[in-house]
């Protein structure tokens, strides 16, 4: 996993609530057995005017000029600003894989669906929850200045604008530690192998049918 320290980038706005995982990456792309390569199909149905199919070269497909990711001003953006309940729907990790593959490192929203939120941290993607009025404020700032640039400083848990405005955010300390160090949490859990075995021994006595 890529290490995450600070990210500085222009902000891509998607001001709609309930952006679901089918919207983020449509199901026909879930047939891949790899973790990479989903970026060109991120928001496929909004981004292109035709129906996307796996294995098709996206560079030759007709773009929807109205969709935010297709506007040159936002090219190379690593920060997505979105409406509430972002990532609702399925548990597909292909959603954070697609966002990450398309270059995004941070998503800012007033709320996230639980599974998506959890999956993001496993893939070097930082979901930041800000109060709804602060998110609205950022959308308003972005509407005035469509090249709004923000710096996300994970270590200090703060967002800074170029004008020096700041927004503090919360992040779980373990998840922060794993992101900053790019750690795979399987290795960390296996440090507790003895505790897991001890749990199994006790419960094998108590509820043997759970171990058959």
């Amino acid at each position, binding site marked *: 996993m890529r290490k995450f320290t600070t990210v500085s980038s222009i902000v891509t706005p998607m001001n709609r609530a309930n952006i679901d995982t089918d919207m983020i990456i449509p199901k026909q792309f879930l047939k891949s*057995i790899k973790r990479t390569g989903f970026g060109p199909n991120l928001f496929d149905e909004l981004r292109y005017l035709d129906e996307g199919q796996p294995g098709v070269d996206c560079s030759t497909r007709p773009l929807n000029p109205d969709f935010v990711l297709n506007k040159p001003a936002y090219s190379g953006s690593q920060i997505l600003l979105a409406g509430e309940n972002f990532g609702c729907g399925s548990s597909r990790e292909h959603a954070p894989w697609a966002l990450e593959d398309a270059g995004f490192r941070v998503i800012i929203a007033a709320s996230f669906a639980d599974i998506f939120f959890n999956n993001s941290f496993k893939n070097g993607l930082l979901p930041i929850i800000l109060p709804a009025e602060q998110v609205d404020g950022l959308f308003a700032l972005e509407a005035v200045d469509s090249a709004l640039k923000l710096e996300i400083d994970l270590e200090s848990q703060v967002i800074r604008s170029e004008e020096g405005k700041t927004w503090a955010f919360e992040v*779980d300390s373990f998840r922060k530690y794993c992101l900053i160090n790019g750690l795979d949490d399987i290795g960390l859990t296996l440090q507790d192998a003895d505790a897991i075995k001890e749990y199994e021994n006790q419960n094998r006595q108590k509820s043997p049918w759970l171990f058959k």
Partner: protein
Amino acid sequence: MAGKTLYDKLWDSHLVKMREDGTALIYIDRQLLHEVTSPQAFEGLRLAGRRPWRLNSNLATPDHNVPTTKTEREIGIEGILDPISRIQVKTLDENCAEFGITEFLMNDIRQGIVHVVGPEQGATLPGMTVVCGDSHTSTHGAFGALSHGIGTSEVEHVLATQCLIQQKMKNMLVDVSGGLQAGVSAKDIVLHIIGVIGTAGGNGCAIEFSGDTIHALSMEGRMTICNMAIEAGARAGLISVDQTTIDYVKGRPFAPAESEWDAAVTQWKTLVSDEDAEFDRVVKIKAEDIVPQVTWGTSPEMVIGIDELVPDPANEQEDAKADAIQRALNYMGLDAGQKLSDIKLDRIFIGSCTNSRIEDLRVAAKVVAGKKVAASLKQALVVPGSGLVKQQAEAEGLDKIFIDAGLEWREPGCSMCLAMNADKLGAGEHCASTSNRNFEGRQGYGGRTHLVSPAMAAAAAISGSFVDVREVMSHA
């Protein structure tokens, strides 16, 4: 000190350790695997040189991609026409063989949708923790099991460590009491609940469904309710254990043996929330108020009763909500204030992990028996949830009833619920579907999904448009 909720009890009994940072290591009793969210997890194990921690906790079956036509299925994996789907199903078989994981192969009679197969086999038991790389894992909460969907990284984590790193969720109670009107089912109850609390209403919570209406439901009905807890934002849905639960589990292949049965039942009977347990949020619903539900929009919360009109954004105070309604109306090709009965349907889908169990098929068969599917429909599909459901339905003659009425009787799989196989909607087509998500493009590019109960879908198949199944049932 207040008593414990069912969720608190399940959490406590699976806590391996609290870690210094406040997160918890939670033991997982059962992991269900399918072809879509597992290949990258197995690849991760291989790359790290790791083996599964406990093989017999895992059970696999292909479901999302498998074709549902008999001709394609009979040939076996090589018969899957879509080459990318074929690779994914093949990869699951290869991974399970390599690591030694029990798999019900595509043409095994026990194959089916993971959330139908687990309970049917007794692989889902009360008091377990159950995970799967699929958000509808909330289904298994119907058994008083703590169950939720996980991502692929977590699938790999459970394979390697038998544990998940978790933070405790909040407790939410949804109490449904009173008698249901004839023709109103578990699906209508849960759609109504989502309409009341919204698609984010359960975010961060485990929802326990309680009340006499819930406990009067069969296990099939309870699974339908818990299945859609995730559509209300809750990763886990729960229903406490009662005699119905215990009777359902008894005698299933993975259920406790005779010698352990009494001890198991004694433990399972404690899987109820204490009288004095406190919930962070309580919602009360009167069953009498629930009418057959139909979604009109592109989120499960965009749902109304069959006797209501499609909403008008002009009546909405908040701009963001008015915009969302207008966007959904545009996508769905509907007019504000129109009647549901004026929507011209193109396809009917009866199936999915929400509604493909034997009881669902019985209800649908009863509605269509002796009638004919409307000539205006392009297709009406019935897709049983597993090979064993299909076998049972055929033993009861339900397949003949469907076929005589002009519906197609298919092989088990996820099918048109998410259109990863060949079963899908064309752009602009309206479908009355017993599945769980009406998101844009969910059932096919540009497709328009209306979520309904099996009885409502069956009645719509006969008339070609939505009708109030309460009227159909009262004339039956």
